[in-house]
């Protein structure tokens, strides 16, 4: 058996009041400071180029054509098996980017490009694997729908003009030395 001796309280401690004033002073101080909480969802979350949101497919600003050639490297790189691509033949001319024509034809484009957003873990491997600068992590983070089927995004939901992805593209090129060496279609 252990006998614990109670601590003798001083007069101010027995009165409680000084401690209550100390606590209230904290409360009133916080009351007049600017708020740190965010009114989500009315007020959207701040994002910047480091944000790895949902992947999106870049389309050229000039004619809205998709950059993807359905090579399947993102599909192979995806650790969550979220991507499914079916290719098709196309004779759409490659657009001239900054006067540098690298191909006469695009030849191949995706017929179907599906990303199962329920599977996607937003890791960014697809962005890293892409040899054509066609897929990038956007700043879009919100993901809610009524059915699972609606969360399998097809081409219509994935296409974004490349200009809207520009900050991310510039950031990726900045941090990845390997990409700087081969900046062809940027």
């Amino acid at each position, binding site marked *: 058996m252990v006998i614990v001796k109670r601590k003798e309280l001083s007069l101010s401690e027995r009165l409680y009041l000084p401690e209550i004033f100390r606590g209230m002073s904290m409360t009133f101080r916080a009351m007049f400071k600017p708020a740190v909480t965010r009114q989500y969802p009315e007020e959207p979350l701040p994002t910047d180029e480091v944000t790895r949101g949902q992947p999106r497919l870049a389309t050229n600003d000039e004619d809205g054509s998709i950059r993807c050639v*359905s090579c399947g*490297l993102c*599909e192979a790189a995806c650790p969550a098996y979220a991507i499914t691509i079916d*290719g*098709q033949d196309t004779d759409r001319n490659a657009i001239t980017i900054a006067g540098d024509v690298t191909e006469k034809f695009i*030849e*191949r484009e995706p017929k179907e490009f599906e990303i199962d957003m329920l599977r996607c873990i937003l890791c960014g491997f697809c962005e890293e694997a892409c040899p054509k600068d066609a897929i990038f992590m956007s700043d879009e983070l919100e993901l809610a729908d009524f059915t699972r089927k609606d969360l399998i995004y097809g081409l219509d939901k994935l296409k974004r003009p490349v200009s809207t992805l520009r900050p991310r593209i510039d950031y990726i090129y900045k941090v990845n030395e390997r990409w700087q060496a081969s900046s062809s279609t940027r």
Partner: protein
Amino acid sequence: MTKITLNGRELEVDASKPLIAACDTAGIDVPRYCYHPGLEPVGSCRICQVEVSEGGRPARVMAACRTQVTEGMVVNTEAAGAHDARRECLEFLLKNHPLDCPICDKAGECTLQDYSFQEQQAASRSTEPRATLEKRVDLGEVIMLDQERCILCTRCVRFQEEVTKKPELTNAGLASNSYITTFAGRPLTGNYQGNLADVCPVGALTLKPFRFQARVWNLEKSSSTCAECSRGCSISVEVLRRGDVKRIRPVFNPDVNQWWMCDTGRFSFPEVNDAERLTGGLIASGDDLMGVTTGEAIRHAAGVLASSSKTALLASPFLTVEEAAEVKVLGEAVGAELLFVSPDPNELKDDLLHTGDPCPNRNGLEQAGFKAISPADAATRVTGADAAILVGERILKLLAGNSLGSTKLVTLDTAACLASGVEACISIPFYVEKAGTWINVDGHIGRLTIARPIPASVQPLERSLVELTKSLSRAGASV
């Protein structure tokens, strides 16, 4: 047999074959683009260079495909000199090769890609622009040529000269301006064009029906046997995402088809990708057919057969030996003669592989005691009986165009029977969905393996046949 030392190992090798074949036998990987075991070596790509010393002389770097094996030869495939020579070669081959890998159908099974990856030969030292040639030359029904990707190995030219003996391709132009083309730009002809895409080591010759259909690393490959004629070529059935067969390619079989196969077999896969295939079973209900489970269709069929006094049985030439054994049991149970429908030989017969006989297992069925019968005679047998069992893949197609009268029909096929007397249709798997054996025209055994899963509502034919025989004996006992 000749004794050589290969990478420090003493080996006995066949002196009639070039050094590169000896390396292959020993399991030593020497890169090659122009050498193909089925074609005459020409030594045009120079990528197979290895270090060889003969008779005590200093080692020299030589192309392994054009070097004869001699007694006491000492070969080192991994010597620094050999690697340097090969790397230089590779640099020249890649000088004008476009960086097309993302859109190239060969990517993933391209040896140029593999070897440049292995040698870390990614950047080019050249500041000259790459040569620009025609990217899409249409060479007829089957082949599309990309002259930029071509590395001028001339395997395609030699294939036509040596295998089909009908040269249609040639190497035109001089030196660095050379390109592959057909004579006077005519399209390719013949039934062996698909092999050109197989022999091409890069993505210069691609198959039009396979163009951009799938990435090759997504294809699940299973070895099987071709169904289009009695030759029974060994094939690889390549399935995308457990669904459609996207490509059929020959597999080396020294006894049957060597490295080749005909286009009839190569492009026969739409047959097994039928979206309208029958699943489960169908039974007659009034004037219509009613969809039921396979089990119910089998019980209904047994009832029909038990009440028939004279039953005819017609097997399809696509039955495997194993299935034929079960059909035999069923045939004895209904007291029918064992017959298989054998259509007339078609005009596709040639000197190379195609036998013109569209029955892949004629030999196996004949050995099992089945007798061949023409489709017209088969239809007569059906109309002369109370009930008939039509069993096996494509049996309805083979009998199409012949009147089957109002005989009660029990069919086991991948498609539904629409004849007037049909009582029960039982679904069966396609040949790419089952394991079994076919015996080809020369008596060689061809194995079938399961290349993709069968739909849940379809059961293996052997099982349906056993169940039908059992239900029949039960129905017979109760009548």
